[in-house]
């Protein structure tokens, strides 16, 4: 490819990969997984074709939220290193096209969910998309350092949607799975924000380390990880899962607490800024993803055995 071609790459328009990038595929993988677990652990059997369609609807709905988020946040995305190369701020996709893409996919995913599964699942899917777009993206994200705490609910919906798609109702177990993801989100994101805080500060996003400082954020990561432990054990205490899940929740919870303690005890200056390149925070962030996969996987294994 010539230099001229490289320089004018944005003028040449988007690739198919750029449109896929609008859907935030990495976030989508976690959403699909938790949605699939919700569907699998529901007591009712669902036809495999309809089950796959329901999971696809969850994935597309989440992707649509991501596309609308990229449309709305294009100004701050352009200021952050981590997001500056996204298709909209980089100029490869027109903002209006990204918005239209997101809205069409959101509507299609909700309608298809209503046809393939039921109205309860479709309604919760619609609420989750609206919550992510209006409550998190447009309202909380630029307003308060608690944006992740409340906005985390958006990522907690998929397990409930999966359950509702199969069962047609919402009972205690999917609500507890919702609570688990809700309390898992803050330490997950705050671990990331500890080493991406300069990006957020440049964009004026009031993430916790930007507003309250790194030291306060480290304490919050540790506190939320400790709160998460009893929440993950609640399904066992209520008799909704067995010992396999309880053992997994306990071991994983202790491991997550250990990682958060390492974040708290990281070598730091007077303001709490890491002197080790935030190695513990990076490790905690990576582990938090593995944690959720293993915890939900254990829940599915426990319910199916």
């Amino acid at each position, binding site marked *: *490819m010539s230099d001229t071609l490289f320089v004018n790459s944005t003028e*040449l*328009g988007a690739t198919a990969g750029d*449109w896929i990038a609008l859907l935030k595929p990495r976030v989508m993988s976690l959403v699909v997984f938790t949605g699939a677990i919700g569907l699998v652990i529901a007591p009712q059997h669902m*036809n495999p074709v309809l089950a796959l369609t329901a999971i696809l609807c969850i994935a597309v709905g989440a992707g649509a939220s991501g596309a609308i988020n990229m449309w709305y946040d294009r100004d701050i995305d352009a200021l952050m290193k981590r997001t500056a190369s996204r298709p909209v701020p980089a100029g490869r996709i027109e903002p209006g096209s990204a918005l239209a893409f997101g809205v069409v996919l959101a509507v299609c995913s909700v309608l*298809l969910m209503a046809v*393939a599964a039921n109205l309860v699942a479709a309604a919760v899917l619609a609420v989750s998309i609206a919550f992510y777009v209006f409550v998190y993206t447009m309202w909380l994200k630029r307003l308060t350092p608690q944006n992740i705490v409340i906005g985390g609910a958006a990522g907690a919906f998929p397990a409930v949607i999966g359950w509702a798609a199969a069962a047609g109702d919402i009972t205690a177990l999917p609500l507890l799975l919702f609570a688990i993801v809700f309390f898992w989100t803050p330490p997950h994101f705050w671990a990331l924000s500890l080493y991406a805080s300069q990006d957020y500060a440049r964009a004026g996003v009031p993430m916790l380390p930007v507003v309250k400082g790194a030291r306060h954020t480290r304490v919050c990561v540790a506190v939320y990880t400790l709160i998460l432990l009893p929440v993950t054990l609640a399904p066992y205490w209520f008799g909704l899962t067995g010992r396999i899940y309880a053992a997994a929740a306990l071991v994983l919870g202790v491991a997550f607490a250990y990682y958060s303690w390492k974040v708290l005890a990281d070598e730091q200056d007077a303001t709490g800024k890491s002197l080790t390149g935030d190695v513990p925070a990076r490790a905690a962030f990576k582990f938090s993803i593995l944690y959720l996969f293993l915890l939900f996987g254990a829940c599915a294994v426990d319910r199916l055995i």
Partner: protein
Amino acid sequence: MKPNAPRFENENWSPEMVAEFKRRQRGRNLALLAVLGGFCVLIYAVAVVKLHEYGQMW
């Protein structure tokens, strides 16, 4: 560029840029074809399953 003219007729573009533009356009078109085809198959499969569930087909 003339109004309504295809973008690859932009006289400032080098032959490599025109080729890259066409490659990207072809990629987008094929991806859209795959998505639309998959959507048709999906709707057909859901319709068959739903008809079967309600006992209206067999």
